[in-house]
């Protein structure tokens, strides 16, 4: 990366990268997951998640601000010095790979449940991986441009859900805070899975134009947008389905749309699902891109072969893993756990170390200014 002039993206593109990365596989089942623990108060859990993430995003921003010219992996190398840094980067690569595998698996399972029951998983997996590889190989700038224009689809998703408004029953989210605050806070954990893309703010921070303050504003608004979108989805599904019913419906959003019919077209859920494929692809491509970036930092080489290898290994792992419910559940839990470690603790730890190690230097820098 350093040899070339850095590809710079605008703040608007940054906004959409965050949004598109965060909104992904989770959207369809999130209301169900939240409901599983916090019952009809799942939306409060979501808000709790969103708020606590905001603090974490602030900390991530602090870290990125301290090293404005380095990307996240370079920061790791610098803060932890070369070899320990490389070790952590490798760990990150493994983390990103496992998230990617999870995304592909959830994607495959969803399609096999809803539309393509007998299509073998490897076909879906290969399509997803190859299309995203094609995208990632074109670089950050192209990714940013594409995500910006694909965001139109998000509005189509919202638009499709608006049709359910006539059947909503506000009664279903009452009484508020019935399930107890402990459950609500526990539910926040479920919400986190849908937000995991937030790490991308840290990874590509250095490629964004503008002042640190403005960049944080972008992060903030992107986070707000995603939260509003999720809140909308959750509230619509919570009020469409009765409290008992939602416990049975794993993908409330799709199920809800299934029963609507237009004069020219029936079964909106199929269209929703098709558009959702794009959302999944954008999340997956970002993770693949981050994996590729990590690999490049480790091997100090710029080559398409590394990303291709990463993509192929994701493909192979996903095929061998398969999407049986139990295993997938397990992988999901592992990824959430890793998400806490890699998305929250390690960056904060890095921030502390960085603060300790580079304090003097930074002050020196300030004096010279």
């Amino acid at each position, binding site marked *: 990366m350093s040899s070339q002039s850095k590809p710079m993206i605008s703040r608007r593109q940054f906004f959409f990268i965050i949004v598109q990365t965060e909104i992904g596989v989770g959207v369809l089942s999130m209301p169900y997951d939240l409901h599983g623990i916090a019952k009809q108060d799942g939306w409060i859990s979501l808000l709790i998640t969103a708020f606590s993430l905001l603090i974490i995003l602030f900390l991530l921003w602090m870290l990125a601000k301290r090293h404005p010219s380095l990307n996240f992996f370079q920061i790791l190398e610098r803060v932890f010095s070369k070899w320990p840094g490389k070790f952590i980067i490798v760990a990150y690569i493994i983390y990103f790979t496992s998230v990617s595998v999870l995304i592909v698996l959830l994607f495959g399972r969803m399609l096999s449940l809803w539309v393509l029951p007998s299509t073998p998983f490897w076909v879906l997996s290969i399509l997803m991986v190859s*299309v995203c590889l094609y995208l990632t190989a074109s670089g950050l700038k192209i990714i940013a441009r594409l995500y910006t224009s694909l965001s139109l689809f998000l509005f189509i998703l919202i638009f499709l859900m608006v049709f359910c408004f006539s059947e909503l029953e506000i009664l279903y989210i009452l009484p508020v805070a019935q399930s107890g605050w402990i459950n609500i806070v526990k539910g926040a954990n479920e919400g986190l899975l849908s937000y995991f893309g937030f790490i991308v703010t840290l990874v590509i921070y250095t490629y964004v134009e503008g002042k640190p303050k403005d960049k944080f504003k972008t992060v903030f608004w992107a986070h707000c947008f995603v939260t509003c979108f999720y809140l909308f989805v959750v509230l619509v599904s919570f009020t469409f389905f009765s409290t008992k019913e939602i416990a049975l419906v794993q993908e409330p959003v799709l199920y809800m749309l299934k029963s609507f019919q237009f004069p020219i077209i*029936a079964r909106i859920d*199929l269209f929703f699902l098709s558009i959702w*494929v794009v959302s999944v692809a954008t999340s997956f491509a970002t993770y693949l891109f981050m994996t590729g970036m990590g690999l490049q930092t480790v091997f100090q080489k710029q080559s*398409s072969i590394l990303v291709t290898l990463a993509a192929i290994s994701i493909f192979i792992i996903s095929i061998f893993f398969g999407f049986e419910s139990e295993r997938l559940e397990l992988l999901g839990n592992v990824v959430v756990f890793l998400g806490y470690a890699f998305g929250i603790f390690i960056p904060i730890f890095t921030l502390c170390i960085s603060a300790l190690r580079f304090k003097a230097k930074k002050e020196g820098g300030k004096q010279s200014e």
Partner: protein
Amino acid sequence: MGFFKKFLVGKSEQGNKQEKAFEHELPQKPHYAQPQQMSSSAQLSENIDYLFSQCKQTGDLKVRALDDGRAALVFYETLVDHEKMQKKIFAPIEMGHVGRIPDLPNSRQMTNLDEAIKKLLSGHVLYFDEDSTRITYFDVTASFNRSVEEPVNEKVVRGSHEGFVENIKTNVNLIRKRIEDKSLVVKYFKVGKKTNTNIAIVYMNGIADPEIVRKIEQRITDISVDMVQSPGFIEEFIEDSTSSPFPQMLNTERPDRVSANIMEGRIAVMAEGSPTSLIAPSTFFMFYQSPDDYNMRWYTGTFIRLIRLTSFLIAIGLPAFYIAVVSFHFEVIPDDLIVPVKSSINDIAYPPLVEALVMVIIIELIREAGIRLPSPVGQTIGIVGGLVIGDAVVRAGLISNLMIIVVALTAIASFVVPSNELSTTLRLLTFPLIFLAGTLGFVGIMFGLLFIAIHLTKLESFGVPYFAPIAPLSLNDLKDTFVRIPLYKMNKRPKDAHPTKQLAMEESREWKKNEQSK
């Protein structure tokens, strides 16, 4: 990062280098930039002999001896206009002596014989005289020009009905007449080692991005090939990505379209012998603009343009969508349509995928046959193909009538695009989508469209993003993309061509304020 691209480009660059190295070993590399050093001799016969040996004793090279063999005119009788020769050379010296020919007003002189051959080949007549090394030459080119007519393939309802012709000078003249400005720059290049085709690039200095101009010049001078026939040749040599199905330069035969694009800061490339002019850099949506849009009320212009853009989706997606519906997701058909649809396809023997392929290929056959045949017969083909085959095929129960509707609609939609190149591309893109739809239904189509979207986003035309103003998004430029807002509001040039001067207009409806204040 451009991994794959870099990989490929790296490879091809290596290939080029090898080729070039090989070329350098050749004894002579004729190139217009490096004139040969064969200067003329004082001996008339030596000069003539040299000319004849260089021109391989061709039969139409004529020598006309004057002044008892002490002077001679050399010319290609097939290239020169004898009347012009009469007017320029013989009429003025009618009274006087042949020796006055070099002093005639239209004459020019040189001494290099190889250069002289070039002049000869471009329709000049050379005058040699004994005891002198100077060569005098006159331009007496015979030009047999088509008159300026409306281009058949780019008709408009309103607006200029002029079109380019095969003569590059006439073409530049048509543009100059439209842009009377001193910063309109025309640069000539000679391309094609054997054909020596005249290429011109035309742009507005001060609006066009100098970087892009430099790129185009660089790429044109890099062309090292024997023959350049038409812009199609040049296009493939200078475009960024040859493996893309999308045309990256706009082909047009309309001077008004060219001059409008030049005013937006783009660059036109024209070639002698072809009425088609290339416009670079182009964006995808430029192919959807027609000069007609600007001659209508802006509501209608917007409406027509939206229809054209919808036709893009129909052209690439409709057959795929239909196949996905009838072979994967027939739940999507609304209740009231179920029975009609079912009755239409119930007894068809082939799967929809085969049906669609057969029909799409039949349409292509009819189209191709219609173009190649003389126009009265072409119409017959249209009738035979469209009506007779279409009807018979349905009656025979081979193809369902719904499929006929779908394929016909697709074909019509693909012809709506004002550019022939893009229209062909669209029809080609239908095929992969049909296959994807036949394998994976909607999911397949979605992946196909995503792939196309990525490709379009990735594509660049002379360093300018091809899919602008969608990706990268430029809200300001959308006003002339999906809609056409009133002209007086389009006061800024589109950003995609990197114009060095953004503002195209100041307040032009000032009078309204003035009138209202009265």
